[in-house]
């Protein structure tokens, strides 16, 4: 008992003296075990139970004197047992709340008396007596680390005076206690070994435990513990399958008594806070927001002081549910998840539906231990040598298994070949999809697509210990040995056999790496043997889908060798090398290596083939295949900016343009994929335009392969930043197919690319007219709901552009687009907010729309976006506010109703972003139309802030700044204040600007300012009259009038001055 208590039990570290037992499942089961021991003790070993302890066990009990019955003498707060020891001392004594006990029989009694509190009694007893054996048998039996000689000593004593009955009893008692100790240790060992990683079962247990601590009243530790999902998968997880591949077991929402609700992810690696997964979270919610803790209790202790404080006070309630068995069952299922599903789930689905199913079934079976009984699959493959079963007899069962395997093998290998291409392109698609979701604004879009790292470091998982190794590990190790020491035939056999393993499975991929197979495979690439190279590349191509393997291949210098192979004469070899490069170059360093070793140039050379002639010879077809593989590799490489440049310099663009005419989809996908990736570079956008590729891109919009359509749309999306390109798209009839593609609402990546292309195309008003013709607007409005953000960004962007045309604003309203647009103002995606505010702003220019926006409190939402930390959002929101104020009824009243709103917008004048400043000035010009508001913003110090900005040279800002100044002059002594703040002289300089709009606004501002004599003097000193005189000749009447008014004011002042002096 002693050893188990000091080693296995988990003591809190907080208090050093009287430690407390932590509330953990492990402790709970330990306590239960001890409890059972004590309960049964007096009936099982009556003699030993009577032995009087050397020293009493004392602790603070919760038992009341009234709890004691017959055999006890109760007087007030003290209780004494009638049973006494040899010296007449009662064996049990209770005074106030301290109880002291002298024998096991009394201990058993207490436990029975305590009833539901018995666990608690045991716990406090043990907490008070860290080493009970010392007290029971004497200090010589203290639990010491290392060798325990107490038995020997006791035995010696027994033999020395063999009359003593007591020593014999003591001996027995000690033996019993040690037995218990061993039992406890072995039990806790079982638990500890299970708890190295969290499993669904342990998490479940923890949650159950925590749930018991929830409830009402003062003493509760937690308010509530809830799963986000009630559905539990057969493996015990409650997360969606695509999160299970990350090892996530379930999500919890825990309401503590003293913090906000905690959103917690429990994964096999530990528990951590997430970004707030409620029911169906967005992707960002899954991100880790805290450190990883080993279990829920630890996390809660860190997060909630209340929890830490109170958890120690909780009682262990007696719970009869057998914790141990439950735990055992789940160990296997976690393993399955680790091995089988870490691979991207769709790859598995496509490639080994068959195997996976079978494998899981086998491994899920509780109790089928992996070590002793290799999974059925490997038995089927029959790798074990018949030399081993000496008799040479194979069991009939095994034979039957083999037969089954044979039957389904051809099917599998067939589908494998077919799947290959679509898989690699699928991976690419996924990557480009990810890049898309990252950006959205025009600048970011091109940037993010260049260097996005779709597979950043995954934690490097190596087999933790030998016991975990699956059987394939040893088989692969053997094959690698033959690869190392074999001649060509032996190597070929070993390579072919290795390909029979499921190379899409991470276990095998990592096994190959861990036994040093990658080194050998890459070495084979350096040999002269074409067959060995082909065989090796076939394996490398498959396993390099794993990002860890990619890195390992690059680390071993595999890319250099593969680049060299691209020069080979053998076309199959070239294809394989290019395809493998396509996989390996999916991370940044890999791409760089390819470029540095001249790979880009060689890959571009592969593209050189005759692709578009209808009838190809066999040889030409092989060339086309080589070109396709080359394009695949370039596609991967083209995610780096410098590689894009290298492709261009190697003359890749005309070759890509030629391949773009190919009729084959499997060629077009990597080609267009590369092009759309490269289109983030201006040089490519120009080339795509000038090399006539727009026509082909438009043509392929109408093909029936959605992936290709997506890449085409995506390329147009990026290229249509340019006006000529937009016109070309229209010219080649690309707008109609784009609108048609809007119907593909199921394929979100396609939809995102399509809407993106429509957005960019709609920047040209001619295109907008076309879109109107094809009723695109109605469809876009319909896409405003239930779409992922990357689609929404583009849809809203397109609507924002289209709504620049008055007719379209009405359409948006008629089809109910205003409401969802306003609804989107509450989002968080930056790119989306920029577009939404623009669209809402455009809509707000129509009074009828404004009514709706007003009803939905849209202006308040816009206003609150001014608080957004991103300057783009701030600026866009401020721009949108302008038409709102202009068109809203009682705009002044509305603006005032925003608490702190005016102060907020005035403070934005401190921004350093030119666009924000311009937009805020524009908004202030609108706000200042209302006199009361003008008074408020004056109080907030708008005048000196505007004055400070006057030195700008940005015409856009100048114009809106001048407007704002003109408006702000209307209140009180603001005119004078502007003059004092030195705003007048810079304004005069604005008149020298080239921009007519600046002139107009400035003249108005000067006219207002000239109502103050001091300002007139300043203006005059800076030569304003000459400039204004020129303005008076303008055709713009507003400008004329303002300029004339200003000059008149100056003149009047001069006259008055003269009159005063000489009159």
């Amino acid at each position, binding site marked *: 008992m002693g050893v188990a208590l000091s080693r296995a039990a988990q003591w809190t570290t907080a208090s050093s003296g009287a430690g407390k037992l932590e509330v953990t499942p492990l402790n709970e089961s330990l306590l239960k075990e001890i409890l059972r021991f004590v309960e049964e003790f007096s009936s099982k070993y009556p003699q030993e139970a009577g032995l009087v302890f050397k020293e009493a066990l004392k602790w603070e009990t919760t038992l009341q004197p009234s709890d004691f019955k017959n055999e006890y003498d109760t007087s007030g707060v003290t209780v004494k047992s009638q049973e006494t020891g040899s010296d007449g001392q009662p064996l049990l004594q209770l005074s106030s709340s301290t109880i002291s006990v002298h024998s096991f029989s009394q201990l058993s009694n207490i436990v029975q008396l305590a009833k539901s509190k018995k666990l608690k009694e045991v716990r406090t007893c043990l907490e008070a007596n860290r080493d009970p054996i010392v007290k029971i048998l004497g200090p010589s039996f203290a639990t010491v680390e290392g060798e325990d000689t107490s038995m020997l000593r006791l035995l010696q004593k027994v033999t020395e005076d063999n009359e003593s009955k007591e020593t014999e009893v003591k001996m027995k008692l000690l033996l019993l206690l040690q037995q218990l100790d061993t039992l406890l240790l072995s039990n806790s060992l079982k638990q500890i070994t299970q708890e190295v990683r969290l499993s669904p079962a342990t998490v479940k247990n923890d949650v159950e435990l925590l749930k018991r601590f929830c409830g009402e009243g003062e003493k509760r530790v937690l308010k509530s513990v809830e799963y986000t999902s009630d559905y539990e998968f057969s493996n015990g997880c409650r997360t969606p399958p695509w999160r299970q591949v990350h090892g996530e077991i379930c999500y919890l929402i825990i309401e503590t008594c003293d913090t906000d609700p905690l959103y917690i992810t429990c994964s096999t690696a530990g528990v951590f806070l997430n970004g707030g997964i409620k029911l169906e979270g967005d992707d960002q919610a899954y991100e880790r927001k805290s450190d990883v803790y080993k279990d829920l209790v630890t996390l809660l202790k860190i997060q909630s002081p209340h929890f830490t404080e109170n958890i120690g006070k909780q009682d262990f309630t007696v719970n009869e549910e057998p914790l141990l068995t439950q735990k055992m069952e789940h160990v296997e299922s976690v393993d399955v998840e680790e091995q089988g599903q870490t691979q991207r789930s769709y790859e598995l689905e496509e490639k080994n539906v068959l195997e996976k199913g079978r494998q899981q079934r086998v491994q899920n079976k509780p109790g089928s231990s992996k070590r002793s009984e290799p999974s059925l699959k490997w038995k089927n*493959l*029959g*790798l074990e*040598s*018949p*030399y081993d079963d000496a008799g040479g007899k194979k069991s009939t069962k095994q*034979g039957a298994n*083999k*037969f089954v395997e*044979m039957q389904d093998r*051809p099917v599998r*290998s067939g589908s494998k070949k077919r799947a290959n291409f679509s898989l690699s392109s699928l991976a690419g698609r996924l990557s480009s999809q990810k890049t898309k979701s990252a950006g959205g604004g025009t600048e970011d879009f091109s940037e993010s697509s260049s260097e996005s790292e779709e597979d950043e470091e995954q934690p490097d998982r190596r087999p933790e210990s030998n016991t975990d190794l699956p059987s394939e590990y040893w088989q692969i190790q*053997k*094959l690698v*040995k*033959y690869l190392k*020491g*074999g*001649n*060509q*035939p*032996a190597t*070929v*056999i*070993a*390579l*072919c*056999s290795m*390909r*029979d393993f499921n190379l899409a499975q991470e276990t095998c991929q990592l096994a190959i790496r861990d036994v040093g197979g990658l080194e050998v495979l890459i070495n084979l690439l350096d040999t002269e043997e*074409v*067959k060995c190279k*082909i*065989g090796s590349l076939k394996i490398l191509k498959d396993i390099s889908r794993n990002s860890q393997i990619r890195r390992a291949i690059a680390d071993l210098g595999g890319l250099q060798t593969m680049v060299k192979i691209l020069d080979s*004469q*053998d076309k199959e070899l070239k294809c394989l090398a290019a395809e493998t490069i396509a996989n390996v170059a999916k991370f940044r360093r890999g791409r760089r290596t390819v470029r540095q070793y001249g790979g880009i140039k060689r890959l571009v050379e592969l593209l050189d083939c005759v692709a578009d002639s209808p009838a190809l010879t066999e040889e030409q077809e092989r060339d086309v295949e080589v070109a396709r593989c080359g394009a695949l590799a370039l596609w991967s490489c083209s995610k780096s900016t410098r590689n894009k440049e290298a492709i261009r310099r190697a003359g890749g663009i005309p070759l890509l343009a030629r391949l773009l005419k190919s009729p084959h989809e499997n060629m077009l996908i990597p080609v267009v994929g590369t092009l759309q990736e490269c289109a983030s570079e201006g040089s490519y956008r120009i080339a795509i335009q000038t090399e006539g590729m727009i026509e082909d891109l438009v043509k392929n919009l109408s093909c029936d392969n959605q992936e290709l359509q997506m890449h085409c749309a995506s390329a147009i999306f990026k290229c249509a930043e340019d006006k000529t390109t937009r016109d070309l798209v229209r010219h080649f009839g690309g707008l109609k197919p784009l609108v048609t593609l809007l119907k593909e609402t199921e394929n979100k990546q396609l939809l995102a690319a399509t809407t993106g292309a429509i957005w960019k195309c709609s920047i040209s008003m001619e295109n907008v007219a076309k879109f109107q013709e094809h009723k695109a607007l109605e469809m876009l409005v319909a896409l405003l709901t239930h779409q992922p953000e990357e689609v929404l960004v583009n849809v809203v962007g397109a609507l924002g552009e289209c709504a620049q045309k008055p007719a379209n604003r009405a359409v948006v309203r008629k089809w109910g687009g205003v409401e969802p647009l306003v609804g989107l103002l509450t989002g968080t995606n930056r790119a989306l907010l920029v577009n939404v505010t623009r669209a809402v702003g455009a809509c707000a220019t129509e009074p009828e729309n404004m009514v709706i926006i007003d009803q939905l409190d849209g202006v308040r939402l816009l206003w609150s976006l001014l608080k957004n930390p991103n300057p783009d959002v701030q600026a866009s929101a401020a721009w949108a506010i302008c038409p709102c104020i202009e068109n809203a009824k009682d705009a002044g009243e509305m603006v005032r109703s925003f608490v702190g709103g005016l102060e907020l917008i005035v403070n934005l004048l401190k921004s350093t972003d030119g666009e924000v400043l311009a937009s805020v000035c524009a908004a202030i010009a609108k706000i200042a139309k209302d006199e009361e508001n003008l008074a408020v913003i004056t109080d907030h110090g708008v005048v000196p802030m505007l004055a400070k900005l006057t030195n700008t040279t940005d015409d856009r800002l100048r114009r809106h700044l001048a407007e704002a100044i003109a408006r702000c002059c209307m209140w009180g002594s603001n005119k004078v204040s502007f003059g004092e703040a030195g705003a007048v002289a810079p304004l005069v300089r604005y008149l020298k600007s080239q921009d007519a709009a600046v002139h107009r606004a400035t003249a108005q501002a000067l006219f207002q300012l000239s109502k103050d004599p001091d300002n007139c003097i300043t203006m005059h000193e800076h030569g304003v009259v000459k400039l204004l005189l020129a303005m008076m000749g303008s055709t713009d009447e507003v400008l004329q009038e303002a300029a004339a008014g200003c000059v008149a004011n100056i003149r009047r002042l001069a006259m008055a001055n003269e009159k005063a002096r000489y009159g």
Partner: protein
Amino acid sequence: MSEMSAMNRKIIQNLAESFSRQIKHFNRTEMECLIRLFNGLVGDQSDRRAANGLDRGKFRNILHKTFGMTDDMIMDRVFHAFDKDNDGYVSVKEWTEGLSVFLRGTLDEKIRYCFDVYDLNGDGHISREEMFHMLKNSLIRQPTEEDPDEGIKDLVEIALKKMDHDHDGRLSYADFEKAVREEDLLLEAFGTCVPDAKSILAFEQQAFQDPLEN
């Protein structure tokens, strides 16, 4: 002498004519070149033996020097595959027939050819023992290993597992063909008996160069 060579040329042309009708992959001129090459190789032998053609030693010499083969046993087997009538000599017809597969054979022809090479006793099956025999030198012997043959045995089992589709413990032609069609690397699973592209190119360049230049 010139009469002789004129007659010779006539004979060669006729021979080439008739061969190129029977044997695939070579045109007439190429055939002529091969016959001439054959004559050259046989040439300096005594008349009696010249009639029979290339003997084992000479043939192996060619395989070794021109096509870089090293395995004695496989070279013997290649000789066997060429020497269809099993008289110990490769005749001119056997030479051209053999080379047509050897150099330019289709996959089908090569499967047949390789199978014949590997079927050591010619019983239509490649047995475990035959595989073991062919692979016995394929692994580097580790001095530490208890049973040096264990690796080979294991390799044989791996090959059987991979190719023995009907599970009778040996490879029939059908097994072999099916396996190679699934994975063409397995064509030369038990030894290199088909020359690689480079040496074919070198050989053809040398053999088919314009006879006038000679």
